[in-house]
């Protein structure tokens, strides 16, 4: 019997929510364990098998000099490296530091700021090493994670479209919250993949899956203004889990006066 592919899960600056999505697979977990060898997954087991690894799932952003080194070791030990979640693909919520001077936070938060060694910016993994595939979301979607692993195991391209949340809202017959209720929604500039959780509950999209392909944030912001949103509020809707993603970063900065 051929050896099963070795899968490793790695953590950088993050909340662990994305790697826990793997454990959340419940029904599919046994099937997955049958197809791959979980070689490194601290949330599930202390047993750690040596590399090299066939597939590395990397969670979290780079925020310390130590992590900036460590990601290179992981890249060297991985044949295929997939980043999972908004932290790993866009710098995460902690990328809010990118808009301010991090030393000021440190001096306020920590009793002994000199103990803290951190970088001025929280950056996605792809800014440090080549990444084979980026899986979006805060947190990632379980179905999409299984799809990416299935695609990897079967040597095919994963079905993780880069189009808007709107496309999926309409497939599901969800009534548009922006048009029918006047609720601000990031769906038209956000990548599909969450299963329209918020619009499905009549809430506006928070943009957890980051910018879609060719996002026209400028036009949408103009409309938010017409809906009565103030400039500072527009800054805030673009500054959440994907604040560091280029189109969202640019849009939030355009409204900061």
């Amino acid at each position: 019997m051929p050896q099963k592919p070795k899968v490793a899960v790695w953590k950088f600056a993050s909340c662990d929510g994305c790697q826990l999505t793997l454990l959340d697979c419940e029904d599919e977990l046994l099937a997955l364990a049958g197809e791959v060898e979980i070689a490194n997954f601290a949330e599930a087991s202390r047993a750690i098998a040596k590399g090299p690894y066939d597939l590395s799932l990397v969670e979290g952003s780079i925020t310390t000099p130590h992590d900036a080194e460590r990601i290179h070791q992981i890249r060297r030990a991985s044949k295929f490296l997939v980043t999972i979640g908004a932290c790993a693909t866009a710098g995460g919520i902690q990328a809010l530091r990118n808009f301010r001077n991090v030393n000021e936070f440190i001096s306020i938060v920590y009793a002994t700021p000199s103990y803290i060694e951190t970088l001025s910016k929280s950056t996605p993994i792809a800014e440090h090493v080549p990444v084979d595939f980026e899986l979006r979301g805060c947190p990632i979607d379980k179905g999409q994670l299984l799809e990416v692993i299935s695609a990897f195991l079967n040597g095919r391209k994963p079905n993780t479209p880069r189009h808007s949340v709107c496309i999926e809202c309409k497939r599901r017959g969800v009534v548009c919250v922006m048009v029918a209720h006047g609720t601000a929604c990031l769906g038209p500039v956000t990548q599909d993949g969450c299963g329209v959780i918020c619009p499905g509950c009549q809430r506006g999209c928070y943009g957890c899956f980051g910018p879609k392909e060719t996002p026209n944030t400028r036009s949408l912001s103009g409309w938010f203004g017409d809906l009565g949103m103030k400039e500072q509020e527009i800054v805030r809707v673009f500054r959440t889990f994907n604040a560091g993603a280029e189109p969202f970063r640019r849009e939030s900065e355009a409204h900061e006066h």
Partner: protein
Amino acid sequence: MNGEPATTGRQFVIEREHFDQLFELLARKGYRVVGPRIRDGAIVYDQVNSAADLPAGWTEEQEGGKYRLKRREDEALFGYAVGPHSWKKFLHPPNVRLWQAMRKEGSLEVQEEKQEVPKTAFIGARSCELHAIAVQDRVFMNGPYLDTSYRLRRDSVFIVAVNCGCAGGTCFCVSMNTGPKATSGFDLVLTEALEEGRHYFVAESGTETGAAVLAELSQRPAEDREIRSAEEVVARTAGQMGRTMDVSDIKGLLYANYEHPRWDNVAARCLTCGNCTSVCPTCFCTTVEDVTDLSGQKAERWQKWDSCFTMDFSYIHGGSVRSTPKARYRQWMTHKLATWIDQFGTSGCVGCGRCITWCPVAIDITEEVRAIRESDFRRTKRDRHGDTGTDSG
């Protein structure tokens, strides 16, 4: 009943208090009945069990990028225009599994998808929507390749049309010559009349099935006065159109203006979100997704609604053909209004106004046509050359 039902081609009156019979009768005949009902702040199409499920006394206010439910001053059951859904969701569903395959001893065994289509009755289809269904019929059934599953669903439908009693703020069926009076494509057509404490429907059948249904309901032949009232309802609606579109020489206009500066203008506003194509009752494009399970023993092919506003839509080896939003909007609008005519012999637009209302940033197809027409390249060229002669085409 023997021979042709006595109700064929004549107009009858069904009083409001007898209207529930229609739902009971259709259910008895084995139909799943779908129609308008209120959900999440809009009138959507979903299962309805009786007239009590209909949006009695409700209408809507529609503008570019805006839809709000509003109370009417009466208890009209069909006193609204059209909502976010169209009958496309039943006839051309957004997600359809096409086939499955299993790996069996080194070879693949493909399993054809079982087609189980429930008999379905549409309640309240509007004239523009009947035209939209006719457009999709041409696409799926009258071309060189027949879509058998569409055919199956289409053949299982019983359509109760309603002539519009009011027009929405983004309606322009009069411009497109698709309404507001339903003239074909229905089994039964109703006109709802509310006058001096009376609430009734003037009904006419369009098919023998429709006539048979009508014959089983409590009805009586309509009086001239009632027929005139119904005609007035439709005439009034025709005068209420929220939008107009000049479609004269629309093909010539759009084909001559591929490089019009207006395309850059609309591209700056367009979100390429795909909402317009999803709500459009004629847009029919799909993509296919192949999925496998973890073990690689089972594969499935799914057909899903797609949109010409996505990058994947025009992706071929090396990249997307229409990489700019400008190219994608121009493709959509030019196809809808012009190349569609070359392809299918009819316009792809029925003037329902959904793409205007449900565009999150209120892009208005009638406004875009008007802007291009106002500074038509051909005319501005003639103006430049001082040519006042007739259009050479």
